[in-house]
């Protein structure tokens, strides 16, 4: 990205200067100069497009891991006031509605894991349905799927996938209100019938990791994390159902925007006012998609726990937290001196609630909400904690991942899947995948430096680092 149009307002924040005559709200990017230089210029174009949407409150924001998306950049955050014509945008949520990360902490140490890691990797690969075209054992009727869309992770727990107590550690306690299964097409439901409890492919993964560094001892203790401990991270979303909701509403909202006189700077920003029949219909469907994703990760967590139970019958495998990073939620925030109900889009961004917030589980409330930055399969991931400064700077939001640094084509030209998997094994990282091409596309070198992203996230006052985890086993689609 060319930094000439940016004004650096702090070591970690940059304001996009307006072109002469350019009518839009503010746009702010977070990160250091090096991270911004590696971002595509399209990020700048996309975030300034978001700043032109009706009813935006405050600036359109790009997190330190931002990269070129469609409509919104990945890593884009924007809040809209329905009382001022604020919109909801399918392009601000993405196709994979409520994609997110479930993090499980275990009572195991790296030393206990090591001798059994290869067999554990094989079993996880066998029992966690992953990859394009792969279905799970769970087959649901349309009626049962409607119950999933209303119940979210609570539905999964009711059907034997996990424990009631762990729902405390899932955003929204496992289920968002306002889901309208009737707003979800039959095709979307048919696509999901065999896909509950599946991982998918692309950048989705199940990783067994070891806590390598602890940055904040008090928060780590609150989260139940310590150096040398084994944790599990599951990254996936709402699968075929979410994809089809995105598909169904993309064209219809683009057309609705035209009818409603909303000038879209990019058709992918397809949107409608929150307070419109079209907007309300999408919100009902999106909330159903969120519940689908919450149920999906609940089932996958249970499947992973079952595999661990086979190898380590006495080990505890508990949910640390479950965060979504492709959502739009109605939240109360203070803006211009008064509390307002805003619809906050986070596309490739994680909610990051400050210490004391009532929506944080009691056990973590003093530390702040756990924020998870998922890295590539060869580098590692971070757990961070929400901080109070994030509210004023980004509506309590933070980064969600390392963010891609190069395209999949470029990665394929640079790496071969087999060689990459072998090289990672030499480094003690076991990859299990059905797609060597997919492995090459997901090469660690194709991603930004996750350490730099986490440092920038902390520097920008969006969240503070708690622990770093290195990968040991990675199941990819």
């Amino acid at each position, binding site marked *: 990205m060319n930094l000439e149009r940016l004004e650096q307002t702090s070591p970690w924040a940059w304001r996009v200067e307006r072109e002469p005559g350019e009518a839009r709200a503010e746009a702010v990017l977070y990160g250091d100069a090096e991270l911004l230089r590696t971002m595509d210029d399209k990020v700048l174009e996309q975030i300034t497009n978001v700043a032109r949407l009706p009813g935006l409150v405050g600036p359109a924001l790009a997190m330190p891991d931002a990269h070129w998306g469609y409509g919104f950049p990945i890593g884009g955050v924007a809040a809209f006031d329905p009382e001022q014509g604020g919109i909801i945008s399918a392009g601000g949520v993405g196709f994979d509605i409520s994609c997110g990360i479930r993090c499980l902490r275990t009572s195991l140490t790296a030393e206990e894991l090591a001798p059994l890691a290869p067999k554990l990797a094989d079993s996880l690969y066998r029992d966690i349905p992953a990859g*394009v075209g792969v279905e799970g054992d769970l087959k649901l009727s349309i009626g049962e799927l409607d119950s999933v869309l209303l119940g979210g992770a609570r539905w999964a727990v009711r059907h034997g996938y996990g424990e009631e107590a762990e729902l405390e550690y899932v955003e929204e306690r496992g289920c968002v209100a306002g889901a309208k299964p009737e707003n979800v097409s039959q095709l979307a439901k048919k696509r999901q019938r065999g896909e509950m409890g599946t991982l998918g492919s*692309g950048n989705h993964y199940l990783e067994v990791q070891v806590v390598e560094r602890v940055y904040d001892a008090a928060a780590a203790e609150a989260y139940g994390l310590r150096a040398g401990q084994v944790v599990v991270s599951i990254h996936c979303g709402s699968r075929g159902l979410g*994809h089809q909701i995105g598909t169904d509403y993309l*064209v219809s909202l683009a057309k609705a925007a035209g009818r409603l006189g909303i000038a879209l700077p990019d058709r992918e920003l397809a949107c409608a006012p929150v307070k419109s029949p079209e907007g309300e219909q999408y919100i009902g469907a999106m909330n159903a998609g969120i519940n689908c994703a919450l149920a999906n990760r609940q089932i996958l967590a249970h499947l992973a726990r079952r595999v661990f139970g086979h190898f380590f019958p006495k080990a505890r495998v508990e949910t640390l937290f479950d965060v979504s990073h492709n959502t739009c939620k109605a939240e109360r925030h203070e803006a211009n001196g008064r509390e307002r109900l805003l619809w906050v889009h986070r596309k490739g961004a994680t909610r990051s609630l400050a210490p004391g917030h009532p929506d944080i589980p009691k056990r973590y409330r003093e530390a702040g909400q756990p924020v998870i930055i998922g890295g590539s399969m060869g580098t590692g991931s971070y757990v961070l904690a929400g901080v109070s400064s994030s509210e004023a700077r980004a509506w309590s939001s933070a980064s969600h991942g390392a963010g891609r640094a190069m395209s999949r084509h470029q990665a394929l030209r640079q790496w071969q899947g087999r060689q990459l998997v072998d090289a990672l094994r030499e480094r003690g990282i076991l990859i299990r995948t*059905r797609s060597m091409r997919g492995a090459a596309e997901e090469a660690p070198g194709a991603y930004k430096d996750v350490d730099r992203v986490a440092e920038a996230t902390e520097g920008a006052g969006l969240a503070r680092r708690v622990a770093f985890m290195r990968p040991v086993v990675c199941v990819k689609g």
Partner: protein
Amino acid sequence: MIVTEKANPGTLGQEGGSRSFSYFEHDADIGVIGQGATLEAAFESAAEATFAVMVDPQSLQRASQEASIAFTEEDVEFALVRWLNALLGAAREQGLVFRRFALAREGPRWSGRAWGEPWRENMERGTEVKGATLTMLSVRQTDGGWEARCIIDV
């Protein structure tokens, strides 16, 4: 901005194969380009490009099963997105991977067919396509016929 067209890869990361489709680059996702003598042929090529992201066409054996697609759309650019997404939906619903496509148009009414086979363990898999997007969407006439392109979300 990185938009470099990769000349006729046939399948991602491999040389050879069909010459009717190609790809262009996008940081996180993939751009597909379908070319053909007619608008319909360009759409068929874009569908080939889309499914080749998910599975190497050379690892497919028999296009033994068929699906029908029908929709009404006046805008040809929206029609490209609807065509690709209808195919993705049908493939996922029926557990198939498609390799051959045929599309016909009568005014705003589009009707298509796709032939494919169920997923098998020994197929050379790529990355799941979540959907076709409106980003960098264009359908245009060229010297040699038609070109249809958009970003697909993976």
